[in-house]
């Protein structure tokens, strides 16, 4: 069975059609997916802007990061759960969609970017935090994240127009 056939099968399972045909379940899941944006992506954007020196300057970034990322973990759990459910109900249509594919690639790159930041820059954050500002590499990660998250939102919104 090819991946496409599997997506088609997934979309037509009893579980998927029950969600898709429910008057309230699909809107509830879709609404939750969108309104979890502030608690997930929004918190990451604050961190990005702080690292780039565009907002929240004057306070130590390390404390800010710890506080915000604690909330964003909850937000991202909601995002992946609701996103997974939405995908199941539309898997066959999403499979060939260019915007959906771009969104997945952006998310993959964001994961790699976050891992790079976590390994290379996060451990030494206390050292450069109170000094002049983030090192160039950390700023690059922040800018990359900012641009890719905008891409994720744009692709996510646009793909729905093509279903």
């Amino acid at each position, binding site marked *: 069975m090819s991946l496409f056939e599997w997506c088609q099968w997934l979309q037509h399972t009893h579980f998927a059609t029950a969600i898709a045909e429910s008057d309230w379940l699909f809107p509830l899941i879709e609404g939750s997916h969108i*309104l979890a*944006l*502030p608690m997930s992506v929004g918190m990451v954007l604050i961190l990005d802007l702080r690292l780039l020196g565009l907002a929240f300057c004057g306070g130590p970034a390390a404390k800010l990061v710890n506080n915000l990322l604690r909330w964003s973990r909850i937000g991202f759990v909601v995002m992946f759960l609701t996103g997974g459910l939405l995908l199941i109900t539309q898997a066959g249509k999403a499979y060939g969609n260019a915007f959906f594919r771009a969104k997945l690639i952006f998310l993959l790159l964001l994961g790699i970017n976050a891992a790079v930041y976590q390994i290379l820059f996060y451990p030494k954050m206390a050292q450069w935090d109170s000094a002049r500002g983030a090192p160039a590499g950390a700023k690059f990660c922040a800018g990359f994240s900012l641009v890719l998250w905008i891409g994720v939102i*744009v692709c996510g919104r646009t793909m729905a127009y093509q279903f």
Partner: protein
Amino acid sequence: MSLLSVLQSCSNWAPVALIRDSKYGMPAVQSFHLMGLTVLLTTVLVLDLRLTGLGRRDYGLSWLARQLKPWTLGAIAVMISSGSLIFLATPGKYLDSHPFRLKMALLSLALLFHFSVLRRFTAADSSMRPRPADVIVACLSLTFWFGVGWAGRAIAFVP
């Protein structure tokens, strides 16, 4: 001239028609609306969490409010301009929609509450633990703003 005919002529105005009829016009405007939503609700969430005492307490409340303010105002500007474009592109879709009316009512309430009550509650720092009134104000603020979001989403599903 009735309201509807005024809106119809706005809707036929070339820039609006171009956005409505081009392939990626509406997705682009909707994307701006969604990015505005993300920034606006993030600033609201961070401020309200801090007000309830659940959020970061290693920063002063008034400092946080001052830092967030330009982003809140900018996001509101983006939301209102993109929202107006979405409305003007197909006014007929929204005029009779119940969730749209609810959304506008909640939006007025949220804006009023934000720039009167919430502003007062976040203007001064207190080293004390949050008072019950702080928690109530934060919960009301979150209810109004996220209510606007839910009502907006309901436009697509409820007549």
